[in-house]
């Protein structure tokens, strides 16, 4: 190992420890802060840290994608959070917990079991090396050997879109277009855009 390698590894380790602490620490903060906005964005920071960890593992694409997806999700989550919480800004401190002690014991137990397993199990040796273009590998994977998986995911996502809309929307096309679906223009609460 050359001196440069040692330096690089030390830097990697330090960065990793920092990211891991951020991921776990902000993850815990999610359930400790009063303000819902802070909770949401603590979770977002945790996700960004995990994205950083993925970058350390040479997973450039997936790391950035995790950031993209999760920050979007959290921004939307904040909206719902504020829509459905009694005290979103945490201005009037109140407890929103139940079964705190039991939950903590279950969580600690889970951690002990999982971490113990992680440390005690004799994991297999590394086989092969990452390809030169990691992104290409996953691209070829989902377009080739794992195509079925992604096709399944696609079908599930389509189902999700439809069922989520059906569940969440109070209005249907009959509200928009009348009982015979012939009302034009549609009776939208807000007019405009394109389409009937």
């Amino acid at each position: 190992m050359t001196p440069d390698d040692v330096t690089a590894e030390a830097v990697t380790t330090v960065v990793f420890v920092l990211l891991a602490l951020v991921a776990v620490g902000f993850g815990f903060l999610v359930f400790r802060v009063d303000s819902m906005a802070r909770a949401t964005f603590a979770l977002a920071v945790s996700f960004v840290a995990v994205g950083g960890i993925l970058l350390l593992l040479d997973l450039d694409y997936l790391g950035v994608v995790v950031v993209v997806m999760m920050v979007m999700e959290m921004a939307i989550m904040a909206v719902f959070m504020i829509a459905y919480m009694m005290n979103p800004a945490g201005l009037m401190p109140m407890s929103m917990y139940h079964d705190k002690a039991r939950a903590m014991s279950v969580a600690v137990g889970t951690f002990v079991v999982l971490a113990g397993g992680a440390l005690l199990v004799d994991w297999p040796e590394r086989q092969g090396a990452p390809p030169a273009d990691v992104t290409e590998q996953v691209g070829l994977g989902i377009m080739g050997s794992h195509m079925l998986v992604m096709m399944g995911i696609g079908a599930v996502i389509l189902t999700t879109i439809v069922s989520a809309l059906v569940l969440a929307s109070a209005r249907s096309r009959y509200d928009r277009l009348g009982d015979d679906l012939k009302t034009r223009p549609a009776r939208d609460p807000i007019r405009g855009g394109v389409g009937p």
Partner: protein
Amino acid sequence: MSAPLLLVLLPAAAGLALVLLGPRLDRSAPALAAAATAATLGVLLGTGRTPEIAYPFLRGLPWRLGTDGLSLVLGVTVCVVTLCVLLVAPSQVADRRGRLASFLLLFLSAVLLTLLSRDLLSLLVGWELMGAASYVLIAHEPGNRRAVDSATTALLTTRALDLGLYAAAGAALAGAATLGFDGLPGLSGWPLHLAALGVLAAALGKAAQLPVSFWLSRAMDGPSPVSALLHSAAMVAMGGYLLLRLAPLLAASGWADDAAAWTGALTAIALGVVALAQSDLKQLLAASTASQLGFVVLAAGVGGTAAGGVHLVAHASVKSLLFLLAGLWLHTVGTKDLDGLRAAAWRAPAVGVLAAVGLLSLAGLPPLALWGSKDAVLAAALEHSPLLYAAGLLAAGLSAAYAGKVLAVVLTRPTGPAPLDVPWTSWAPLVPLAAGAAALSLLALGATGRRFEELLGAPLPLVEPFGLLVSGALAATVLAAMWWRGEQVTAAMPAAARQWLHLESAGHAVAVRPVRALSYALAAFDDRVLDHAVMAAAASTGRLARTLAGADDRLLDHAVEGAAAGTVRTARASGRWDVEGVDGVVTAVAAATRRLGAQARRTQTGQLHQYYGQAAALLAAATLLLLLVR
């Protein structure tokens, strides 16, 4: 995409698009379809001969498509005829033109698939699609019950014989584990004979040969443009084509080639007589089609692939021209009955010239198309057997006779009817067909014949000048005879010939009625024998029961009453034991179960987080179990 598949998919895609858009594009659909056909023709001409290409389809059984000389020539013929039909169709069909055009394209696609296929699997696909499209096309007129019935008759007849192809495919798989055409002659034993029989049946059925020619008569209920494509150039011709393509298989079987040759010769004669007896122009043309296809089948039987190919092409050109003319007259004069068409040729001279060319060619007058092509077939037959040659010559004379009959009618000197107003658009597209009808004998003769041989890769038989002279003279003589004595000849035809030799009734008698009778018999057997047995058993059971009841009343009752008193005593005793002993145990078990059930319900709190906790605990337990078991 490689060319063979493109050739099939181009018209299919265009046809499907028109099916979807058809109702909206009703007026412009024929023009669009014609454009698609022209494009297909362009691709076909640009492709030329290609080696066979295997497209993966089933494991080990690919689609094998390729273009060789024969499929190229027939493909070009079919495309040209389709183009002419599509250009003429708007002037002859008023309703649902979009539907007509789109299904003509789909039909074209199926025909091209049939022509390009080099294995039974893709052939079957093309064959079946062709049949289905023909059904839709024949039953084109909305609300015409008879046309629908006729389409059904045609479809059922040909489909029943198409089962032969499936049998052939099965035999080929069993015998050689391949469906390729090249592997078929290599079969031996029963697979060879079954394959030959199956192919023969399917091809003869499609080509409307004896004894199933009647479906072609029924198919005349469809629109004339449809007949012009299906019953001259494409569908019936595909029957002949299949035999030409698989002539090696027929030869290998040792008997199928002779059977084909004689069936062809007999059909050519018998349907020639039928044609001569017809008084309806389309029926006459239909019978003549079957008769002319007889020559092709004869050629296939004697191994004259090239001669048969020439005759197919020449006949397609002549007959599509005549069918379209029949449609034109039906549309303008208002009838297809020969009596009504008297002097029709003079009433629209341009159309009359076309008709004369077509009919003279059909008669086999030198130097027109069918003269040369028919002589090529006859020469091939002569190499094989003089008897076949003689039969062919007889059939040639008959074709001159029925052509002469029509010619005499339409060329009668006009006596009254006013000239017809026929726009040039409705006859101009026929000119290329007429040109073909006039000139295609070149394919069989002389230098052009040699070039054609090279293209086909099969030798034409050497046509003796003497033979040409004989058949030409025969045609001229018969034509002259028909011109002067046509009425008498027609009148001399047997009545059976007018009714297509009662082939349809025979078909009903031989195939339909037995099947129906068998099913009735089976139903009757079910009703009478099986049902009867069941009912009899039931009745006798009833009688037995009554007898036993009588015995019961008289003998057993006493014994029973005595026993009953004892039973009652026993029952009381056991009742006490039941209430005090068994019941107690049951109640206790039930109570315990209920308690357990209540306990179990406590986990079902409806609280999401508690479910999560349970799930976590369960997972932990499962992990533990896994660790312990390992």
